[in-house]
């Protein structure tokens, strides 16, 4: 059945700008529905292979909705909606701060339903932003590199470990380049808020000439190939999905605190099909009722009970607090500090 959709589907992959727009996209794929009456345009930061099972299952239940899935970085997504008023029916992003800014500045529609009412309060804001996954920022280590040493359980232990074994970790630590990655910036700013140790950790990593990445996927690749001994602040869901394919890596959840990023969806103000977008938001809000999709996508659905199992887990709070690190001066200052810590030589 699923195969039939694939075969019938016009699969289109393009790179570069989307139409005549100025914002950059990374790819697009169309999923035509068998009895299509509307085409839902989604702009998303999630990789297509991560999100595809959700789209296919959604279309199985709603066979009249075609989906035009556009992939863009969180910065480009923001640019598309905030500056260029591009027309999309749904925006899905892991950059909670940018989604918050879109809603705060009036670029999102209000939507509510029984399904969204069941979402916990921390998983929605203003009935405009709806979280559908809770993804912890984790540390991924290479088993081979940690032979004979106990892996660190928290940031203090990591700092000590790195300070005591500079030769072992020189150029073998990976983390996000916060200048290039929205998720990286979000994790770093939350780290700086949560603990003073963050800046010390950054300095230690800088001294070891840590390597900087734009995506979690690349970090996981390099850990499994043995190039990296440890990757800090990797999106947990990506790591989980790669785990079976890369036997040599291990995921560590720190016990001091774990930032939990929420992947969120919003209906842009100029959406053409807000009703269908609402149906998709309901579908996403109820992902916890579909364990088979969690299995396929490795996207952990919103689940308060599961979150409580780990007392160190801290879901990043949606709300105006997230606007602070988007402040022009604040961001400049933060990046300046970060760069000077990371690039000491």
């Amino acid at each position: 059945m699923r195969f039939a959709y694939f075969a019938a589907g016009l699969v289109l992959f393009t790179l570069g700008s989307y139409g005549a727009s100025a914002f950059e996209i990374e790819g697009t794929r169309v999923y035509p529905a068998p009895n299509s009456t509307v085409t839902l345009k989604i702009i998303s930061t999630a990789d297509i292979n991560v999100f595809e099972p959700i789209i296919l299952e959604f279309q199985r239940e709603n066979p009249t909705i075609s989906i035009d899935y556009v992939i863009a970085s969180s910065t480009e997504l923001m640019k598309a909606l905030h500056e260029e008023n591009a027309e999309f029916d749904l925006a899905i992003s892991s950059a909670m701060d940018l989604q918050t800014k879109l809603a705060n500045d009036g670029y999102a529609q209000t939507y509510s339903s029984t399904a969204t009412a069941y979402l916990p309060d921390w998983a929605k804001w203003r009935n405009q932003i709806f979280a559908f996954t809770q993804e912890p920022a984790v540390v991924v280590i290479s088993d081979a590199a940690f032979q004979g040493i106990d892996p660190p359980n928290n940031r203090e232990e990591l700092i000590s470990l790195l300070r005591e074994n500079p030769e072992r970790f020189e150029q073998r630590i990976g983390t996000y380049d916060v200048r290039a990655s929205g998720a990286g910036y979000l994790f770093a700013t939350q780290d700086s808020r949560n603990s003073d140790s963050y800046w010390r950790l950054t300095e230690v990593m800088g001294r070891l000439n840590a390597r900087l990445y734009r995506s979690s996927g690349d970090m996981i690749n390099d850990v499994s190939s043995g190039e990296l001994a440890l990757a800090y602040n990797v999106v947990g869901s990506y790591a989980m999905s790669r785990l079976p394919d890369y036997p040599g890596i291990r995921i560590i959840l720190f016990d001091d605190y774990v930032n939990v990023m929420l992947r969120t969806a919003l209906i842009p103000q100029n959406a053409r099909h807000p009703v269908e977008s609402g149906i998709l938001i309901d579908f996403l809000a109820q992902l916890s009722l579909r364990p088979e999709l969690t299995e396929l996508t490795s996207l952990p659905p919103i689940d308060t009970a599961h979150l409580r199992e780990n007392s160190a887990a801290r879901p990043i709070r949606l709300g105006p607090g997230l606007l602070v690190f988007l402040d022009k001066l604040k961001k400049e200052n933060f990046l300046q500090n970060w760069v000077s810590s990371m690039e000491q030589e």
Partner: protein
Amino acid sequence: MTTPFANSSIRRRLVIQLSLIAAILSLTFYLIVRFVAEQAAIDTQDNILAASATSIADALYSERGEVNLELPYSALSMLGSISEDRVFYRVIVDGETLTGYTDLPEPTPLPIPSNAVFSTFDYRGEEVRSVAVARTVSSSGQAVNTTIIVAQTRLGLEAISSSISTTAAFVGVGFFIFLTTLSLLSAQSALSPLRRMTQSIKRRGPHDLSPVKTQLPSELVPLVAALNKFMARLHASLTESEAFVAEAAHRIRTPLTIVRTQAEVVLRKLEKPEDKKALRKMIRAVDESSRSAGQLLDHAMVTFRIENLLTAKLDLGEITRDTCEHLSPTAGLKDINLIVRIPDEPLPIAGDSILLQNALRNILDNAIKYSPADSDIHVTIEKSDHYEVSFTDQGRGFGKADLKSLTKRFSRGDNASDIVGSGLGLTIADEVARAHKGRVHIRSNTEGPGACVSLILPRV
């Protein structure tokens, strides 16, 4: 001229007026609570806005000759802690926007340091509350004026005020119901003396015209005084008419006796049978009138004595025997046998002997009158928890007449038209019985024809 609501009940008027007052109080209460609570909610938002703006102002610093800002996380997150409102801010240094929303309007007049300016306006499609705070930052030895504006939409405020309004409305309605219930109760209790007075007047006997002496609130005293005066007047007028009737009866009876005696004399002298028949008719009419006058006189006397009832210790057996003896000649005229069966023991009773004799005489007189010649009349006294003096005759009984109405004045059985009578006999007996807390019981004779009339009197 009619007064409006002249007919509506005092109770209803009281309740309506008190309910109106309750409604006004409840509404006032609701409005005050709402106003105070909303003001408190506005003040809360203003305070948080001011705290946010102040914390931003405190984070301003000067670096290499330029004013810089380290926007504190709490400055915005504190605004998100109580509601999900949109937040906007703008920092202006020397007229230039340093950071924030460049289109967020500056207030007029601009704030002066230590004095925040609050305003409400529409921004980006929604109403916002904004605060502007001024701060002077020293940069390279020069004082630089900065303005910090923080604005927030009022979604949370509306939610709070609508929830307060709902609560206040519920409390107001509850207050109203409570007050109305209280007003019902107080109307009830205010009117209870009136009800008591009505009851005490209702309970009185039909001839009781004595003054009302119930304990009453001062407001009712004039009304009762007026009522008592009225009753006194009525009493006087009744007494007067009774006296008039008695006087009239007395004056009629005496000449009637003379007329009768003369008629008897004339009758003996007449020879023509038709003349005799006519004269007999006349004598019969005179008898009827004389008897009626006698009974009217009796009735007036009974009424007077009942009003001023004298109670003495009497023996019912003795009184009954006296009455029977007194009337035995009349019975003898018709060959009626009076069979008296009275227990041979004292039958003490408290009462007025003249009244009791009168009552017994009237009953026995009736029995004799309606008995056929050569019959028996049984006179018995039975003693249980009360006395029952019964007169059982073998006469025609009461036919189909309503037994209860027979004790009314001038009421006679529907089969009694051929016999001289006024219809006052049983009335007198009944009034006497009632005055002595007893009653007259009338029934048909259970053994054979005739009637049985009993005077039932309480024992001492």
